[in-house]
C-alpha cells in the first residue's frame, strides 16, 4: 500500500513564505536575535554608545512624531510645542554624539574582523544618511536659522547638481525628506545593522587566540553550560 504525500507538504517547499521564514530562522534563530547572555569580554562603557545611539533615535522619532501630529507651525506658537521641539533638537545632538563615540570605539576595536565588514559598512552609511536627515530638519524649522542655512547651503547642493532634486529653499520638499524619506532610510539601515550585529555577534578581542588558550565552553548565563546565545557560531 503506497503512501500519498499530502498536498500541504508538497506545496510547502515551493512556498515563498516558508522559504523566507526558514531562511530567517536559520540566519537568526530567536535565541541569537534576542540573547539572554553575552560574551564576558563585553565589559566596557564603550558598548553603551551603540544602544545610546538607538535610544536617541527612538526619542528623536517620538518627539518628531508629536511635532508632526500638530503640524510644522505648532512649535512656534505654543510653549508645549517649543518644549517638544527642544527635546527633538537635543536628542539629535545626543544621537550624533553617541554615534560618533560608537564609531570611534568600533574603529579602535577593529570591529569589522571575523567577517563583520558589512556591520561596519551599514553603520558608516547610517551616519552619512543621518547627516542630510538632520540638515533637512534644520531647513524645515521655519525660522531665521532655516532661512540662513537654506540660502547658504544651496550653493554646495547646486554645485554638484543635487539642487535640481534637493532644493533646500523649498520647504515642502525638505519637510517631506525630513519626516518621511530620510527617516525611513535611517531606520532601515539601523535595523539591518542591528540584525547583522545579532547574527555575527559582538567582535571578540584582538589577537584573542594568541593571548589566550582555547577556552573550553564555560557555563552559560544560567549556569547550564550553553554558550550559543549572542556569540558567532
Amino acid at each position: 500500500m503506497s503512501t500519498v504525500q499530502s498536498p500541504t507538504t508538497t506545496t510547502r517547499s515551493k512556498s515563498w513564505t516558508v522559504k523566507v521564514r526558514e531562511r530567517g530562522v536559520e540566519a537568526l534563530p530567536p535565541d541569537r536575535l534576542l540573547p539572554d547572555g553575552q560574551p564576558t569580554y563585553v565589559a566596557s562603557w564603550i558598548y553603551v554608545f551603540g544602544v545610546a545611539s538607538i535610544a536617541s533615535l527612538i526619542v528623536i522619532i517620538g518627539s518628531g512624531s508629536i511635532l508632526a501630529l500638530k503640524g510644522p507651525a505648532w512649535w512656534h506658537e505654543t510653549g508645549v510645542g517649543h518644549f517638544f521641539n527642544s527635546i527633538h533638537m537635543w536628542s539629535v545632538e545626543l544621537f550624533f554624539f553617541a554615534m560618533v563615540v560608537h564609531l570611534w570605539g568600533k574603529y579602535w576595536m577593529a570591529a569589522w574582523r571575523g567577517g563583520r565588514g558589512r556591520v561596519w559598512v551599514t553603520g558608516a552609511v547610517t551616519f552619512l544618511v543621518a547627516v542630510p536627515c538632520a540638515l533637512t530638519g534644520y531647513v524645515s524649522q521655519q525660522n531665521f536659522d532655516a532661512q540662513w542655512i537654506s540660502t547658504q547651503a544651496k550653493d554646495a547642493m547646486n554645485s554638484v547638481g543635487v539642487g535640481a532634486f534637493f532644493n533646500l529653499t523649498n520647504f515642502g520638499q525638505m519637510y517631506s525628506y525630513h519626516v518621511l524619506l530620510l527617516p525611513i532610510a535611517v531606520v532601515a539601515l539601523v535595523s539591518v545593522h542591528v540584525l547583522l550585529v545579532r547574527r555575527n555577534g559582538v567582535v571578540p578581542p584582538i589577537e584573542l587566540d594568541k593571548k589566550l588558550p582555547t577556552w573550553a565552553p564555560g557555563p552559560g548565563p544560567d549556569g547550564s553550560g550553553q554558550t550559543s546565545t549572542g556569540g558567532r557560531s
Partner: protein
Amino acid sequence: MSLLGPKDDTQPWKGRYAPYDLVKELCIAVAVVTVLAVLLTVLLSSPDDRPSTIGQWSHELPGDFATTAAAELTETSGIAEYGPPYNHNSGAVQHFLFLHPQRWLGVSHPINTADDYVIKPLETIPNDAALRSALAEYKAAPEKQQKEWSAAYAKPLEEYGTAIEEKKTPPSTVSVDQSTGTVTVKVSGAGPVPTMMTSLESLAQSGGLEGGLVSSSQFFQTDYTKPLLFMADGGLLGERAEAQHLLGKQWGLMNETGSYPGQPWLWLYALWYQVEPMKSSPNADIQVLLIMGLLSFAFICIPFIPVINRIPRWIPVYRLIWREHYRASAGPPIRPRSSA
C-alpha cells in the same frame, strides 16, 4: 603581519557568557536619553528667532532693498547671474576638471529676476493709474531701452551701496529716509523705472510682496525659493547672521542663533572651506563636496583599506577597552618560590 594583506585571525568566541538582558538595557537607555533631553530642554531650551520678512527688510534697510530690487530689474544680481538651477547664466556655475554636474542637471527652478521679482508683483497692484501707465510704457519698450532705463536707475543706487559699505559719503543723487523707509533716486534717463520701483517699495513695506513671490497657479504653497533667494541677494540676512556669529568666517554651520549648537558633526566639511586652494577658489563648493565624497567612501570602506585597517592593532586602544578581559585571562599572578 603584512601591511597590504592583513590576515584576519579572529576566531569565533567559544568562551564564557554573562547574563544579559537586551530589552531591559534598551528600555533603560531610552529612559536615560529621555531624561537627558528633557534636562537639556529645561535648562537650555532651543533657538527660534523669527524669520526675516521682505516687509521688515524694506523698512529696516530701504536703501539695500532698493539697490537689490534695481539689480533684479537690470538682471545683474547674484541670482540673475547665478546659472543652473535658476537660469542659463554662469555667474555661480562651478566645475572640477571635466565634471560640470551643475550644468548637466540644467535649469530645474527657473527664475527671471526682472519678471519674477519686479514686473509680475507690480502687475498685482490694483487701482494705480500711474503705475499701470509706467508698466505699460516699460513693457512696450524694446529690450535695449528697458536695459538703459534700468541701468540709469540702478547706477546711483550701486554707488550708494558701495559708499555705505566702504563707510564713505553716499552720492547726493540718492536720499534715504530711514524713519519712513522711503528711497528717492534723482536720476534722468530712467523712463518709467522710478515710478515702478517706488511702487515696489510700497508693496514690500505693506507686506504684499512675499505673497506675490510665492503665488503661482496653485492655491496652496510650500515652495519659498523665490522670496528666499530675493532676500539672500540683499543684505538683511547676512547682517542678522553676522550678529549671531553664523557667517562662514565665524562659527558657520556649527552654530545656531543664540549660540546654540548647530551641526558640529559637519566640522570636517566646514574645515575645508578655510583651507587653500578651496578658501579662495570660485569652485570651492564642488571641490569640498568631492573631497568629502571621497572621504565618505573611504570611511565606509575602512575595513578593506590596507594600513588604515591595521592602525587599531598598532595603537592598542583595544587594550584599554578590553582590559578586564585581558586581566581576567592572564590568571592569578605567579608568586616567586620562597627560598626558606
